């Protein structure tokens, strides 16, 4: 492997990294802090604590994949880098869940969009959940710090046509649009972010905070699943974890016991509540797993007169917030408009169909363009979110009922997206919905979309952003942690990931997670390094 690759070089230089599938006997390890999860939250936490001289152990259920493994192939990437081999859904199967499961978590497979938490969201949190410390002015330096750490900046290159069509349509209709900031350094503009960046341009946790932590003597176990936090009196005493076998999904039978004086959970908005529930930790007001949010996503596809080649080029570079806060922060549901990349397996999995019709649909992939709407859930009483609970085998599952309030937004978003695509010159537009035909004019689309049944399993829905389930707030009766991610009832437990968001964000969440984790880890490091 090329020694230009920072991971290969780090491993060769003696990083303390253990592939748990290679363990043949149970073992016990100990550190100042155990961090569970290596995504946006866990990586940031581990680096900041390790730089302060604390001994840190990182625990990751997925495996370590890096440049040598990133060969721009959808099938192997979806199988290895995503939760449940890309088959994760909500409990009733109605919403497909895209979520990373590897070192770096979802930051290894995301499309690099890097937004600050909108001011409206932070203000709403301070007013509604008593989170005064998170007001926009107070958070600004943390966002700035993380933008530097992850090399985030508005994309300077021209957008690919897939994204430019969103811009053109918005322009034609007088809707606002902006250029997306991306966390890349020397990006080749190839379009393969979602299958693991092949060129090491993406500055996700895998190439920033994880190496930063390992360079400062942190230890990392990958292929190791956190099973249960075990208490002794009023503190967490240790974490029990199971090694996965070489396939990455079947436990090998070997267990690891991890002892520490402090534990940070950063296992995602599905994994973190799952771990807390499995551990049976104190939860006097039954808040764990509640208020789970997902930015429900619906989509339209368009057939354009010219080749779009939606599989090439930076996947996301243009967005529109025209409808995001249009009805106020907590009125009728708002949504952000973006564009997804379309590679063949993704397109074939997302656009439902079979037979000649599916073959004809996919045959026009080079001319296909798609727009997605990300609904800003959790701000209105009729958007209380979903619930994470445990299956019989202890694995977490998200139940997410879609309320009429959300269905109204989903229908409106189908309409806006179709209108935008026609305004940009689309020959035909189809809602990604089992009952949608291809419509050849905006008037036809408008009439038909107004009649589409807004029902689970008919409308095809997705989520790439899981948030909440361990809400932060000043009142322990309606939250799990305080504004610093400190557990309300257990002194040596913190939560540093998207699970602590009390609503959704209203933007792709990676920078929100990085910034909050940086702020809360800096405070945690101060507390843990106090003399005596």
């Amino acid at each position, binding site marked *: *492997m*090329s020694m*230009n690759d920072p991971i290969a070089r780090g491993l060769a230089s003696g990083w303390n990294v253990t592939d748990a599938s290679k363990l043949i006997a149970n073992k016990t390890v100990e550190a100042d802090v155990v961090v569970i999860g290596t995504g946006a939250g866990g990586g940031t936490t581990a680096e900041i604590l390790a730089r302060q001289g604390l001994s840190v152990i990182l625990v990751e259920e997925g495996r370590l994949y890096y*440049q*040598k*493994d*990133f*060969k*721009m*192939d*959808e*099938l192997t990437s*979806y*199988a*290895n880098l995503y939760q*449940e*081999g*890309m*088959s994760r859904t909500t409990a*009733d*199967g*109605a919403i497909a869940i895209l979520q990373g499961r590897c070192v770096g978590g979802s930051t290894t497979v995301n499309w690099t969009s890097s937004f600050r938490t909108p001011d409206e969201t932070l203000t709403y949190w301070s007013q509604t959940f008593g989170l005064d410390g998170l007001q926009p002015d107070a958070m600004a330096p943390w966002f700035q710090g993380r933008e530097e750490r992850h090399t985030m900046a508005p994309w300077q290159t021209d957008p690919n046509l897939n994204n430019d069509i969103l811009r053109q349509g918005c322009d034609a209709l007088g809707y606002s649009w902006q250029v997306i900031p991306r966390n890349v350094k020397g990006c080749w503009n*190839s379009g393969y972010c979602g299958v693991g960046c*092949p*060129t090491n341009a993406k500055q996700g946790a895998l190439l920033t905070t994880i190496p930063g932590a390992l360079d400062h003597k942190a230890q990392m176990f990958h292929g190791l699943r956190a099973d249960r936090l075990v208490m002794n009196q009023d503190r967490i005493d240790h974490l029990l974890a199971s090694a996965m076998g070489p396939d990455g*999904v*079947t436990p090998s039978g070997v267990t690891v016991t991890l002892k520490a004086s402090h534990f940070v959970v950063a296992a995602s908005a599905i994994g973190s509540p799952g771990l807390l529930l499995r551990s049976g930790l104190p939860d006097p007001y039954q808040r764990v797993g509640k208020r789970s949010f997902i930015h429900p996503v619906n989509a339209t596809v368009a057939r354009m007169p010219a080749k779009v080649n939606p*599989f*090439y080029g930076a996947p996301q570079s243009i967005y529109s917030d025209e409808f995001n806060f249009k009805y106020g922060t907590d009125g009728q549901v708002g949504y952000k408009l973006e564009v997804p990349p379309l*590679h*063949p*397996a993704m*397109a*074939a*999995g997302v656009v*439902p*169909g*079979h*037979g*000649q019709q*599916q*073959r*004809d649909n*996919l*045959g026009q*992939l*080079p001319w296909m363009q798609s727009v997605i709407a990300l609904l800003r859930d959790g701000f209105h009483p*009729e958007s209380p979110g979903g619930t994470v609970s445990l*299956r019989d*085998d202890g*694995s977490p599952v998200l139940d997410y*009922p879609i*309320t*009429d309030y959300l269905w109204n937004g989903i229908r409106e978003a189908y309409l806006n997206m179709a209108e935008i695509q026609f305004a940009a010159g689309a020959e035909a537009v189809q809602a990604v919905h*089992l009952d949608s035909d291809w419509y050849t004019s905006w008037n036809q689309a408008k009439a038909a979309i107004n009649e589409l*049944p807004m*029902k689970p*399993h*008919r409308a*095809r829905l997705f989520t790439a952003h899981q948030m909440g389930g361990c809400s932060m707030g000043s009142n322990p009766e309606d939250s799990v942690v305080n504004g610093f991610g400190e557990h309300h009832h257990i002194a040596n437990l913190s939560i540093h990931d998207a699970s602590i968001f009390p609503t959704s964000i209203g933007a792709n969440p990676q920078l929100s997670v990085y910034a909050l984790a940086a702020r809360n880890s800096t405070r945690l490091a101060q507390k843990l390094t106090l003399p005596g």
Partner: protein
Amino acid sequence: MKTPQSHEHPKGQLADTSRRSFLKTSLGGALFLGTVSVTAGLSGCATAPAGRISAVGSRMNASYQFQFLSKDDIALFEALLPAMFAGALPEEPNQRQFAIAAIIERIDQGIAKFGPPNQKELRKLFDLLNFAPTRVTLARVWSDWPSVSTREADAFLNRWRSRRIGLLNNGYIALSKISNVAFYGYENHWHLSGYPGPPAWMVDSLPQFHNV
């Protein structure tokens, strides 16, 4: 579940009521599927992974070790895939059979990474489709899968797609998604979607394509 009830509810009905009725149907469905899996196992349906299958007759790659799909599941996909990929499979019978066998192997590889909970869900779905009483009542497929024509398989897929019953739509999405991803995502079929593959200039210049 003899007369499956729709998940649907009149628009504007209280969210509370719809939630309850949904839970009821969903739970009923889950329990029902659970029973099928047990019964299917007891009645001699093949539910164990098929392991290695002889290349003779099956056209399977004899070196491939099936990790999840049983012999009955393989027969199910052999019946469904000609309808699933109508117009996209080779016409020549030998090539066609090889192509179908290769897709089924990739479906198996994909499912192997789904992990135990979703594998359990798929096991229920496949058992339901392989167990004659439920195949007849829920899928309305009268003969064993090996005797099902492409036209009948297509009609079955259309029924599960169009009926306004969430459980059936969900089954359709599961079957079509795992098949579509395994088929259109595979390098040999990229030409069908006009996808040229990773740019050659990248493959030429990136180390992961050159070092073993």
